[in-house]
Structure formats: structure tokens, C-alpha cells
């Protein structure tokens, strides 16, 4: 078997592999639509909600974002509580101090990165 190595630049590689991905996806989609034929069930088109009627959905349910934040807050409870207590003390100066110290820290990292880049 003939082995070929294509050394490209990262942007060209991204374009080439994305193009190949679309081609393979197209082949899969065509094959599946050919195999599936007309076997689409017309019975029971309602949503499956554990046997309930769709009317139950009119009640308020947590949004996706709320579910996501709920999970994050439960898993990262300590970090979340620390941040909340640090930022939300009710004193404006605390919030100002917290935000400026973080932004100052980021600025410091950026300056160090620039210096390292210039020196190296």
C-alpha cells in the first residue's frame, strides 16, 4: 500500500478535513435514505412523555439554562459559593476590588506574555 504524508499548514488542513467530513457525511446520509426506504411509522405521532398528555407541558418547567446552572452549582458548589460571597457582599467597593484585581491579574499575564514573545 502506498503511504503518502501530506504536511499542510493548519488552516489548509482544517479546510481539507472539513471538506472530507462533509463528503463522508453526504455519503452516509445518501446510504441511510436509500436503506430506510419508506419505512416511516405514521402511528403514534404524539410526543412520549411517560404516557402523559401534552397538556402537562403547559406547566412551568425549568429551562435548559436553569438545568445547566443547577448542575454546575451542585457540582462546583464550593467554588460557586466562594465566588458569590466574594463578589456579592452588598458593598460596591468589594465588587470593584474583586473585578479590578482579576482584570489586573489578566493584564499582568498579558504583559508577561508580550515580554516573553518579544524576548524569545
Amino acid at each position, binding site marked *: *500500500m*502506498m*503511504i*503518502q*504524508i*501530506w*504536511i*499542510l*499548514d*493548519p488552516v*489548509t*488542513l*482544517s479546510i*481539507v*478535513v*472539513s471538506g*472530507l*467530513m*462533509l*463528503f*463522508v*457525511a*453526504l*455519503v*452516509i*446520509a445518501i446510504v*441511510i*435514505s436509500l*436503506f*430506510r426506504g419508506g*419505512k*416511516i*411509522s*405514521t402511528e*403514534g*405521532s*404524539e*410526543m*412520549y*412523555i*411517560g404516557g402523559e398528555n401534552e397538556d402537562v*407541558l403547559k406547566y412551568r*418547567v425549568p429551562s*435548559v439554562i436553569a*438545568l*445547566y446552572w443547577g*448542575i*454546575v452549582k*451542585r*457540582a*462546583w458548589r464550593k467554588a460557586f459559593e466562594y465566588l458569590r460571597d466574594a463578589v456579592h457582599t452588598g458593598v460596591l467597593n468589594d465588587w470593584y476590588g474583586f473585578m479590578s484585581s482579576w482584570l489586573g491579574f489578566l493584564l499582568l499575564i498579558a504583559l508577561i506574555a508580550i515580554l516573553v514573545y518579544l524576548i524569545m
Partner: protein
Amino acid sequence: MINEYLYTLFVAIVFPGLFFMIAIALFSEWFYRKVVARMQNRMGPAYTGPMGILQPLADILKLLLVKEVKKQRYSSLILAEVGMAIAIASIIVSVFMLPISPLRFSAPYDIVVLLYLYAVWHFIGLAIAVLAYPNPFVIAGLSRLIALTVVIEPAIFSSILVPAILTSTNCLPIYSILCISTNSWRLWFNSPLTFISMFLALLSIIVATQAKLGLKPFDIPEAEQELIAGHITEYSGSILALYNLLHDIKLAFSALLITYLFLGGPYPYRHLSITGITLLVIKYIAVLYILSLLRASFGRRRIDQGIVMIMKYSLIPSIAALLISIITLII
């Protein structure tokens, strides 16, 4: 020129593209089911083909050719199929960057391109396919999947960075999959520090892969006792066949990725030698065996326990490995 196009077509469709990945994926599912069955004192697949090896293929074909696909009132079958096709294709194309492909695509820093396919496009395809069948259980499952992905992907990225950093001094193209794969086996013997960082990174990527594949103890988005089937509640027929195939292909690719990036694939031997192929197969089977063993040894965790577990056994070890590898590089 035409020959080159034909060769690329062969690589994309036959080896190591669509057909090869489907074959290796079905074998991986059979092996995984056999190991799990053995641990649970069952037979596992036994009747279709020798030792039941054709059972996963029979399952897929039955779903595809015999079973009807249910069209729900709010669903879009075409969108679900397109999403699944994108998710499967993103994994298949990722294989072209591994040295198993006779046509190897490489570039400096191509680990980012690999993650662009394996993490970003795969997830986009899956999310499109899942949201094509709207349902409260599906939304809850997808929400859990997103929460897990937020922790899993950084862990996978930092684990892959470890061999990339350690091989970056003496190999070109820098930070490339090709470079990491061909040199990673040396890192285990270089020095105690490289050994420790490789071991931590390997541990980390195995746990993260287990979670990415949704295997126990991380089958939280599908949690059948709570969410029916979570993000795949409404799937049936051909679309369920595609989902199962996607899962198997992801299993096979993840095992291949660990085999090449952390265990060195067939190296120091060549691919087209008996010793090389034997070594590659042994490493691949060992990775599959560990993933199956973990799957059979744990029960499902709650979502917050699952996230904490991934952070503790995957994200933190991978960051520690990253720091050790940077220290090794400086020393």
C-alpha cells in the same frame, strides 16, 4: 491528478474511512459486550456468526432494514439524519490524521484540528440530531450531556497536550498527531518525570473517554430509570441504528486514539510488519478491555457526583501531568 483523487476517495470510503471504521466499531462493540457479559456471569452475544461476532451487525441491520422509524409530530427526521451523519463523519475524518491511514494529513499544531473535529463538530452533529426530536426527557438528557462535556473536553485536551509537549523538542511537524504517535512510546522510558506525566495523562484520558462514551458510571444523560432514555428517548428504526453506530465508532476511535497517542501504536515496529500489527492489536484490545472493565465494575453516578468524579480522576490528574511535562521540558 485523477489517481490522487481516487486514492483520497478510497481512503475516505474504504480504508481507514467509512467501511473500516464500521467494521472495527462493530468488532469493538462485540468485544465490549463479551467482556461485560463475562464479568456479569452471562454468555453475551453467542449465536450470530462464530462466537456471536456478527451480532452487532445483525442488530444494526435489523434496526435499519426491518424496524420502522417513528415520526413524531414535532420532529424532523431529515435533520436528525443529517446531524448523525455529521457526528459520524467528524469521527471518521479524525482517523485520517492518525498514522493508521495510508494517506496521512498532518500540520504543525494539528492537535487543535483533531479536537475541532472530535470535540466541536461531533458535539454539534449530536446536538442537531438530538434536538430534531424535541421532548422534555430529551432536553433534560441534553442538558446533562452539555454539563458533562464542559468538564470532559478540557480534560481530554490537556491529556493530549502532555505527549505533545514532551515530543515537541525533537520532532517535526511540531505539536502534530503524527509526531506524537511515532514518538510517544519513547516517553515511557525517557525519565521518571516523563513516565509519571504520561501515566497521569493516560489515566486521565481513560476516565474522560469513559465519560465521553457515556459508559457506566457516566451514562448519566441516558439514565433510563430517571429519563426513560434521556437524549435518545424518541429514537427508533434507522435513526437509532445510526446512533448505535455512532456510539460504536466513537468507542473504536477513542481506543485507537489512546493506542496511538499514549501507547505508541505499532512503534518502534512498522505498520506493515507482523510484529507491528500484533503490537497494535494487543494495545488496542488492552485499551478496549480496560474501558469494558470499568463499564462493568461501576453503577451509575448522580450528575453532580459524575462531574466531581471526572474532575477528581481526570481533569486534575491531566493538569498535574501538564505541569510535570512543562517542568520536564524546562529541565
